[in-house]
C-alpha cells in the first residue's frame, strides 16, 4: 500500500481540499483508497457526511486496543473509505508519547489494513509535533501545499530539514502551490519561476477558486460535483505528479 500524506505546519493552506480530492480521484481511477482524517477539526469527515467520531475513541485505535478496521466507514463513493476524524485526536501527541515506539505508531496501526487498500491518504493536522513525525515515518510521499509567498518557500526548506532528520531519504517530499491568486503579481512570479528551479516543487498549482470553497457547503469533493472544472483538472494533474495516473 502506498501512503500519501498531505501536510503543512500551517493551517488554512488547502490540505483538506487536496486530501479529499486526491483520495476521490484515486478511488475513481480504481485504486482502493482509504482517507484518514487525522485532524481533530475533522473537516474531511464533514465533507464526506460521516459523523466525526471514532467508535471507542481514537485513543484505542492509536494504542492498538481496537482494530483500525472497526473504525473505517464507507463513503458514498466506490473504492473510497474513510477513517473519521475525532475531536480526541487533539490529544494524539500525548497518546503517542506514552507508547513504546512513539514515532512509528501510525505505521504500525495501518499495517493490518495494508492489503485492503492500494492507497492511504493522510489528512494531517497543522503542527510540528510527534504526530507529524509519525506521519513522516509512515508516508512514502508527503505533499506540502504552499501559498506562494516568500515565507512559504522557507517552510518547505524547514520541512526538508525536518524530514532529513526523521525519515531520511526514503521519503519523497513534494511541495505544490495552493490557493494561487493569479491576480496577485507575487503569486504569479513565484508560481511561474520557482518550480523550474526546485525538484521538490510540483509543476501543478491549485488556484484559489470559490468552487473549491463550495465543497464544505455541498459536502462533496469538487471533483465529484464539478468534474470538468479547472479545479478538478488541476487536482488530476497533481494526482499524476503525486502518485502517477489516478
Amino acid at each position, binding site marked *: 500500500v502506498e501512503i500519501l500524506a498531505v501536510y503543512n505546519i500551517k493551517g488554512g493552506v488547502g490540505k483538506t481540499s487536496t486530501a479529499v480530492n486526491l483520495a476521490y480521484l484515486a478511488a475513481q481511477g480504481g485504486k482502493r483508497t482509504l482517507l484518514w482524517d487525522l485532524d481533530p477539526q475533522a473537516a474531511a469527515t464533514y465533507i*464526506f*457526511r*460521516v*459523523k466525526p467520531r471514532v467508535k471507542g475513541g481514537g485513543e484505542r485505535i492509536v494504542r492498538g486496543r481496537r482494530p483500525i478496521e472497526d*473504525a*473505517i*466507514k*464507507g*463513503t*458514498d463513493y466506490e473504492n473510497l*473509505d474513510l477513517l473519521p476524524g475525532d475531536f480526541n485526536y487533539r490529544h494524539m501527541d500525548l497518546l503517542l508519547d506514552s507508547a513504546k515506539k512513539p514515532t512509528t505508531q501510525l505505521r504500525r496501526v495501518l499495517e493490518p489494513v495494508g492489503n485492503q487498500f492500494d492507497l492511504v491518504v493522510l489528512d494531517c493536522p497543522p503542527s510540528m509535533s510527534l504526530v507529524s513525525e509519525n506521519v513522516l515515518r509512515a508516508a512514502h510521499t508527503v505533499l506540502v501545499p504552499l501559498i506562494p509567498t516568500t515565507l512559504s518557500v522557507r517552510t518547505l526548506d524547514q520541512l526538508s530539514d525536518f524530514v532529513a532528520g526523521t525519515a531520511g531519504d526514503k521519503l519523497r517530499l513534494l511541495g505544490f502551490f495552493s490557493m494561487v491568486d493569479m491576480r496577485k503579481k507575487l503569486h504569479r512570479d513565484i508560481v511561474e519561476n520557482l518550480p523550474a528551479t526546485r525538484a521538490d516543487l510540483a509543476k501543478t498549482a491549485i488556484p484559489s477558486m470559490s468552487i473549491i470553497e463550495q465543497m464544505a457547503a455541498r*459536502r462533496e469533493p469538487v471533483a465529484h460535483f464539478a468534474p470538468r472544472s479547472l479545479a478538478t483538472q488541476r487536482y488530476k494533474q497533481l494526482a499524476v505528479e503525486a502518485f502517477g495516473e489516478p
Partner: protein
Amino acid sequence: LTHQLLLVNPSDADAGSVTDAFAGVFDTQPGTVARSRTTWLETADSRLAKSGIRLREVTIGRRRQLFLTTDTGVVESGPATGLSWPGLPAQLGDGQLGELIGGAAAERAVVPACTVDTTGTTIRLLDRNAKTIGTALIEQRCLTAPYEGTLPVRITLTALRGYHKELRPAVTALLASGARTAQWFEDTMPEFDRGTGWLQPAKARVTLRDSDPAARSVAIVLLALLDEIEQNVAGTRADLDIEFLHDLRIAVRATRSLLKLTGDVLPEGTVENFAPRWRSVGAFTAPTRDLDVLDVAVSGGDPAFGGASAEDFTPFREWLAKRRRAEFRRLSAALGSTEFTDLLGEWRAVLTQAAKTSRKARGMRTDKLVVTRMDKARRRAGKLADGLTESCPIEDVHDLRKRCKELRYLRDAFLTIGAADEHRKTIRELKALQDVLGEIQDDVVLLDALGEYAASTPAPPVATVLALGAVKDRLEQRQRHARAELPAVLTPVTGHRPAQSNDQTAV
C-alpha cells in the same frame, strides 16, 4: 466488507413500492438500473445436479459470464464468449470450468434449462445527513421460454462499510411491508434445473403389486418406456449429443423385449400389430448408434492400441463422420415421419387402455407372469450358452447377448415384484455377463468397420494404416480374453456350465 440480506416480496412489488416501504425510516435516492439475463444450464439427465454442480450463464450487456457453484461451496467463473447452448462440454477447453463440467457431464450436451430476465434497480438509503449507509438492489425477474411468468421480487440490502447497525431498520421496514426471508428461494432454484424443453422430468416411479393383473402391470411398464422414448426424440433429432439416441434405443430395445416376452397378456393382436413396427424403429436407429460407438472407441487415441495417437485415427474418423451424416439424415427423417408419430400415438392409446384394467380383474397375476417368463428366458439363454465354444461364430455370441438383454430388461421392469435382493443379484450378474458379451460384439463391429474402411480407401496415410493395424491386433487379443472370461460370468446367470471344447478353455 458488506452485509447482505436476501428478501423476497411475495406481492407484485416494483422499485416504487419497495422504496415506499422505507418511507419515514430512510430517505432514498434513485440509482442505476441494470438488466441481465441468467440461464441455468444442465444436461438432459441432470448430470451436473447429480454431481453437485449448478451452472449459470449471466449476460449483462454484451458480457457473458459462466458461474459454477458446487455443493462444497467452490465457485468458478469464466467468460462465456463464443460458447453456445446446447453444446458439448468440450467447447469449454482445458480450464478449471471445462474440467469440472466435462467431468460431470462427460459426453452429454449441456442445454439451457431455464432463463430468467432481471431488471435490477439500485436505490441508495440515506441517513439524516444525506449520507449513504447502504443500498437496496430491487430485482424484478421474469421467466422466459420455455417457462413464462413473474418471479417474486428479490431485494438485496448491502450496508456500506461501518454501517451494518444503521441498516437494520431497513430490514424491519421491509418485513413490515410483507417481505420475507428468501432462503426458500435459494432452495427452490435447483428445481429450474429440470423439466423443460430438452430436459426430462424425473422418472415417475412405477408402482406394481404382485397381485395386480399382469396386463395392467405390463402396460404401466411399457408406458414408462414410451415416456422415455418420447423424451429423447427431440434431443436425438437435434443431435445435441450421442446419449439422446443411446437412451432412446435402450427404451426401444426394452419395449421390444417386453413385448416379445410378455406382450401376450395385452389385448389380442397387440404383438402382431406393434412388434414389427418397433423392430423397424430398432433397425433405423441402429446404424447411427453403431457409428457413434466406433467414433468414441477411437476418438481419444489409446495406448492399448499400440500407442496410436488421436491424430492417427483422424482419416478413419472423418470416414466415420461422413457415413454418420448420411445415416443421421435417414434417422432424423424416420423419427419425424408420420409412421413413427402414428406408432407413438397408437401405442400410447393401447397401453393407456390396458393400464386401466381393474386391479380385481381376472387373469394372470403379475408375480406369476414374472416367474414364468423369467424361467423361460433363462432357459433359452442357457440353451444358447451350452452351444458356445471358443471358436463358435460370432453370431452365436450375439444371439446369447440379445437373450441376456431380454432377461435383464424383464428383470429391470419388474424389480418390485418378488424378492428384491434376488433381483438385484440377478441384475448384477447379468450386467457382468453383458459387459463381456458387449465387449466382444463391439470389437467385432469395429473390426468390420476397419475392414470396410481399408477396402473403400485406396491410399490411407501410413500412420493411419499402422494405427489401425495395431487396433486390429489389440481387438483380436481382447476378443480372446473376453471369450475366456465368459464361463465365470455365464454360469451364475443361466445355471448352465458352458461346453468344453478340445481341452481348451470353454466359452
